[in-house]
């Protein structure tokens, strides 16, 4: 008899559990507006058009900001934004999410690709279903998108970083790069451009000794940085084009009291780096404003959906506060450029560190 009860209990438990979670998810909706689930959980079926964005992975402030900007743009034009991000930064998970969005018959999908090619079949399927697809930040290949929102020209990033570091170390000495995972596409492109820039004769005395990979893990980034410092005692500068890496490096340099001896620059979140920029461990670093990237993507998506643009070169559209933007060529695809990377130094870090 108690066995039957157990069975019944199972049913009840599972029901309540699942329902409970559904509920919990509704609360989020009413609770914080930052929550992805917010708009959708209420299962609204109004005339509102649905614009979805998929970031690399959850729990990443940079991504939160990008999605926030996207949401802002979409809501300015009175539509509904769906914000998604898998728990692991993998293409597999993103494909699954794209499938889900296709089922929901959204009007547009903006994706920050975990892999340039892997998403192609899924995104193609979406486009065939009449969904407008664009990528932002980290691009997917030209066939699987209509347009790409480029936060900043990879060439410019690469070259500026080299210029920056060589200026810091007075034009001569050994430098090293601390990247994210060996797989990260945009990091790799930037590094390519850095190497190109270095070929310039004026960097004759600047020597790139090693590219290390911190896998965007704190502990690994730290031990990699320490290894750099020990293997290359007269290392002058470190370029870390990744938010985790640069912060970890900043921490190591601070703890080892190498401020001023080893220069640090790269791409990082102001909030993460404020400490080290104010202390001077990293005189300055670069980053674009992720909020704007998302915001621009939002307007681009709107434009694609209401047909003002199709993703062809030369088309123009107004992106809210960012004003008018034009679509330009990018390899065999097309893109919209946000602008140059933004330079953060002791003068302006204070105001930005609270923003993102």
């Amino acid at each position, binding site marked *: 008899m108690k066995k039957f009860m157990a069975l019944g209990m199972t049913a009840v438990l599972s029901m309540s559990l699942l329902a409970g979670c559904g509920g919990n998810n509704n609360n989020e909706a009413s609770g914080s507006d930052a*929550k992805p689930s917010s708009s959708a959980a209420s299962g609204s079926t109004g005339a509102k058009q649905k614009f979805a964005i998929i970031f690399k992975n959850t*729990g990443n*402030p940079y991504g939160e900001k990008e999605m926030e900007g996207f949401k802002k743009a979409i809501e300015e034009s009175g539509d509904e934004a769906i914000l998604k991000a898998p*728990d692991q930064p993998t293409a597999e998970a993103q494909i699954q999410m794209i499938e889900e969005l296709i089922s929901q018959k959204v009007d547009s999908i903006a994706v920050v690709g975990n892999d340039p090619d892997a998403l192609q079949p899924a995104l193609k399927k979406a486009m065939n279903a009449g969904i407008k697809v664009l990528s932002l930040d980290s691009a997917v290949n030209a066939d699987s998108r209509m347009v790409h929102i480029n936060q900043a020209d990879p060439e410019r990033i690469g070259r500026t970083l080299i210029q920056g570091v060589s200026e810091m170390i007075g034009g001569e000495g050994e430098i090293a790069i601390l990247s994210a995972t060996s797989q990260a596409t945009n990091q790799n492109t930037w590094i390519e451009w850095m190497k190109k820039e270095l070929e310039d004769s004026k960097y004759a005395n600047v020597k790139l000794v090693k590219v290390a990979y911190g896998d965007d893990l*704190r*502990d690994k980034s730290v031990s990699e940085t*320490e*290894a750099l410092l020990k293997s290359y005692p007269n290392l002058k500068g470190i370029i870390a084009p990744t938010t985790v890496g640069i*912060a970890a490096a900043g921490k190591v340099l601070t703890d080892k009291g190498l401020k001023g001896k080893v220069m640090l620059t790269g791409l990082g979140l102001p909030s993460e780096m404020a*400490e080290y920029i104010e202390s001077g461990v990293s005189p300055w670093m670069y980053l674009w404003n992720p909020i704007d990237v998302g915001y621009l993507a939002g307007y681009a998506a709107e434009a694609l959906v209401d047909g003002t643009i199709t993703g062809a070169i030369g088309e123009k559209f107004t992106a809210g506060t960012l004003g008018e933007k034009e679509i330009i060529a990018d390899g065999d695809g097309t893109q919209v450029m946000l602008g140059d990377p933004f330079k953060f130094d002791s003068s302006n870090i204070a105001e930005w560190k609270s923003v993102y």
Partner: protein
Amino acid sequence: MSMNNKGGSPAPTATNAAATAGASGAPGPAGRPTATPAPAAAPKASLSANIAKFRELGLLAFIVILAIGVQLRNPSFLTWENLNDIATNTAILSILAVGMMLVIITRGIDLSIGATLALAGMSAALTVKEYPGLSPLVAVLLGVGIGIVCGAVLGFLVAKINILPIIATLGMMNVFRGLTYELSGGKWVSAHQMPDSFKAIATGKVLGLNNLIVIAVVIYIVAYYFVNHTRTGRQIYAVGSNPDSAEVSGIKSGRILWLVYTIMGGLAGLAGVLWVAKFASAQGDTASGYELSVIAACVLGGVSIAGGSGKISGIILGSVLLGILNNALPMINVSPFWQNFIQGMIILIAVLINAVVKRGIDRNNLMRRRI
């Protein structure tokens, strides 16, 4: 020692038996030496005892050789500073290894420590962010507390509902990880939001040694005393060595299990705070997959997954070996793409050698028995 005992015991037993026999004036034959150790029973544990010794020496030797090798490639390896770094970076791992050893001794395993660590770390970080004035000690206690709660939940699932540890921890791993994200709302807590007093937990020094090292050492001393010199400590081994007779001899296995997982949780919580303080940043995905390194450390340290055996000295060596690997591979310019492979190989080889040595000793013991 145990080898001689193994050999030494049976014959004399019998002879003394004869003595007592004479004493109680019993018939002749009984007095004659008889007992040959039942081969089934005899080799097993005495060997594992030998191994325990042998393997640690072997491990030590291996570490030394490795160190020398690296030193030749990169002279800055065996410098006080670098050793200090290794110790500092290994501290957290080794702290967790203590808890994991206890869990494994009871025939369990804990996959959730990475998540617990993250949860505790994040909560502590958020707290100090809100109340910068807060004494770091409070933050530490908070972290430990949260860890203990997580551990207690696991302990309950394992001990009271008796779910298999691997499953229970697998499930709760997801839960804790999820909670961490929920808690942080996807944000990170970064350096400038943490008061220096908090960051000082990990940077501060006590007589030239980084706090982390000191804390680890203290924990090891306490742990050593606990497992070797307290009743509860020994009962942990008892439960792992033979759960049934533990019941019979009135040991509350349930409580012991519960305790073990709670300790593991507490240590994970502590590690969480230290981690966050060390890297001056708390993320949702902190230390994901870290549990594998910890388990590897225990295995290298000779903690038997079958339960019942495992020594503090062993896991120290195990953690140190891993620590050296993490530090050395980048330093001798091993291509980052090879590092995975090498680490895996070293773990595999270590355990295989272990097995082979064991067999060797086994054979020798049999040789000694003249037929």
